[in-house]
């Protein structure tokens, strides 16, 4: 009975948070002279209105699922991987490099390019992992710094070695591409690509590693209580490094999805892609579970794609759209605060 109640509460909190977010957004729209019903109708229409926007939403979900998984995976081991953004950028760059440089049949080329993204992201995750395990350097600081390193190193590489036209590299060879005429045809020329199915597979893989393998149990145990797991004979330091590497690899594959699927190239990034940072919100809202991440990625992907339609369909100014979206994220993120407060109240009650 308690289990069912717990599950209900777990589900209810993010839903309430989302509702509050939309409600606050509606108030802002009212206050600024827009019709919130028309605004949200345009938003929903911009997400599921027709095949094209739906395809774009699924396309947008793909990297968000990967970055969400990356954050959640590290979080399950008690680590805050704020460096998903940087891991994603190096993964993107590495996959595009492999996609351009090599000339191989598709069966080898495509997996190789994705693997390159995973390895690059993994290395970017390994650095903070080893620093944390060996020298107790807090991973938050290292990962934040490595985001900037990733951004500027990748820009430097593109600018000096790979610049083709304007601000981007050449296109990757078709044998390394995830684009699909079939999916594009289904969705009226959207940029949806096979990566979406890889993202679903990644959700399953994350669940399998964490809950169905011994290593996964150790990783989670280290997250729950490092001292206890150390006492139980687990090597916590190895687990920290491993967790960061796997987390970085997921993020790197997320970058590869952009490089091999959406764009087919990497451009000089004038600022962060925000895919990695949004992954933090996705993991939060999804409660660090596979299904939760999938659904949260749909919400965030939908908001991003649908937002443009609020401007086009309901004449809501783009700046206002961003405020509304930010409010929704604000309430979603604060759902954990709400839960924290609820838990405190409950435990106090039980304490008495």
């Amino acid at each position: 009975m308690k289990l069912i109640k717990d599950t209900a509460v777990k589900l209810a909190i993010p839903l309430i948070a989302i509702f509050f977010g939309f409600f606050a957004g509606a108030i802002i729209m009212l206050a600024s002279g827009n019709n919130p019903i028309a605004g949200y109708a345009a938003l929903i229409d911009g997400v599921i209105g027709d095949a094209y926007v739906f395809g774009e939403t699924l396309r947008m979900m793909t990297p968000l699922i990967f970055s969400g998984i990356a954050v959640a995976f590290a979080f399950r081991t008690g680590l805050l991987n704020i460096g998903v953004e940087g891991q994603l950028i190096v993964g993107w760059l590495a996959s595009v490099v492999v996609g351009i440089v090599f000339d191989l049949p598709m069966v080898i080329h495509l997996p190789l390019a994705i693997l390159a993204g995973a390895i690059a992201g993994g290395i970017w995750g390994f650095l903070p992992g080893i620093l944390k395990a060996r020298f107790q350097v807090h991973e938050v600081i290292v990962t934040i710094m490595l985001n900037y390193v990733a951004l500027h190193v990748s820009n430097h590489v593109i600018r000096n070695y790979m610049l083709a036209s304007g601000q981007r590299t050449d296109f990757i060879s078709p044998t390394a591409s995830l684009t699909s005429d079939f999916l594009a045809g289904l969705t009226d020329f959207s940029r949806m690509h096979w990566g979406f199915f890889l993202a679903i597979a990644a959700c399953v893989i994350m669940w399998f590693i964490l809950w169905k393998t011994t290593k996964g149990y150790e990783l989670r145990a280290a997250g729950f209580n490092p001292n206890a797991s150390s006492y139980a004979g687990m090597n916590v330091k190895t687990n920290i490094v491993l967790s960061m590497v796997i987390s970085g690899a997921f993020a790197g594959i997320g970058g590869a999805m952009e490089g091999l699927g959406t764009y087919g190239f990497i451009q000089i990034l004038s600022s962060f892609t925000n895919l990695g940072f949004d992954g933090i919100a996705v993991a939060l809202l999804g409660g660090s579970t596979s299904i939760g991440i999938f659904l949260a990625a749909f919400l965030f992907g939908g908001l991003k794609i649908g937002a443009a339609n609020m401007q086009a369909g309901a004449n809501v100014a783009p700046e206002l759209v961003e405020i509304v979206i930010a409010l929704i994220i604000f309430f979603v993120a604060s759902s954990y605060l709400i839960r924290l407060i609820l838990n405190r109240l409950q435990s106090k009650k039980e304490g008495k």
Partner: protein
Amino acid sequence: MKKGLLMFLFSIFALGTILAACGQADDNEVETPADTGDTGEEVEDGEGTAEDTGDFVAKMVTDEGGVDDLSFNQSAWEGLKQFGEDFGVEVDYQQSSDASDYAPNLNRLARDPETSIAFAIGFLMEDDIRSVAQQHTDKQFAIVDTVVTDDDDNTIPNIANITFAEHQGSFLVGVVAGLQTETDHVGFIGGVESGLIKKFENGFKAGVKAVNPDATVSVQYAQSFNDAATGQSIANTFYSNGADIIYHASGGTGNGVFSEAINRARNGENVWVIGVDRDQHEEGEWADGNVTLTSMVKRVDQAVYQVSQMTMEGNFPGGEILEFELADHGVGIAESTENVSEEILSAVDEWTQRILDGEFEVPQTDEEFEEFEI
């Protein structure tokens, strides 16, 4: 407890990063697209059906800069708004917050049956407009600052390519620089080296050479359009080596050039910057003066206006490469001329006339500059 604290920290971080990310576009003034849309309709109602222009709808997609970027996105939107007011037709814009928005935004305009012509502002949208236009062959598109070609290097029949004779405008600011320089040494800082920016460089060098054959022109590329730090360090090198005027064609990188010039002007040095794309007078302002000598302006607003008008009159220049020149008022020097002497201004007028009369061709490429004699 530990976990609770972790959760809390996590939420704060998430919030911080997300809000910071979302905050970028919010700090500028809001220009509601609804306003213009409404005006358009009212004018239409007022005029009745005198002209059959009521169903013409012109829309544009901005690049990352947004519609209030103080640069060519803003200029394009001003041109489009003016067009909407003058002809009583509906105009609107779609703002892109990053590069991944280009394709959906262009697609939205392409799939909207009302849209008569969709403008892509800036060469960054080249790849996206190519695929969207090829998927929607019945729609009319236009792109600013580049020429979009298909796999066989042919232009695409439903894209009008709007380009500018930047070399002519650059020639005129070169004339200003050549006459103004006291050290007989001027500099040119480019963004990413490309055919487009070469037009600025060669036009400028030709202008200097035409009026002051003894002057040296230092040239360097920052290889970026948004790296103000590099811009500043190149400017520092140029000024230290004796250049007293720098012309930049480097977008945001040029902001560093202005910073360096202002620093030096504060220390009493006599240095100048020549701005690009629009009148960059305000970028050069500091407490006791202004380091902006003049600017080479590109009238994106004029171009967007004219192409809209052509399209409305049934003469959509699809597949054509339109070059807006001095003669079309597509390029020229800025209106703020307080730092330029009357004498130099009259020289500029004289050279403008000579270009308009076709007395000589302003060089665009390195080869043409090699052969350039005046």
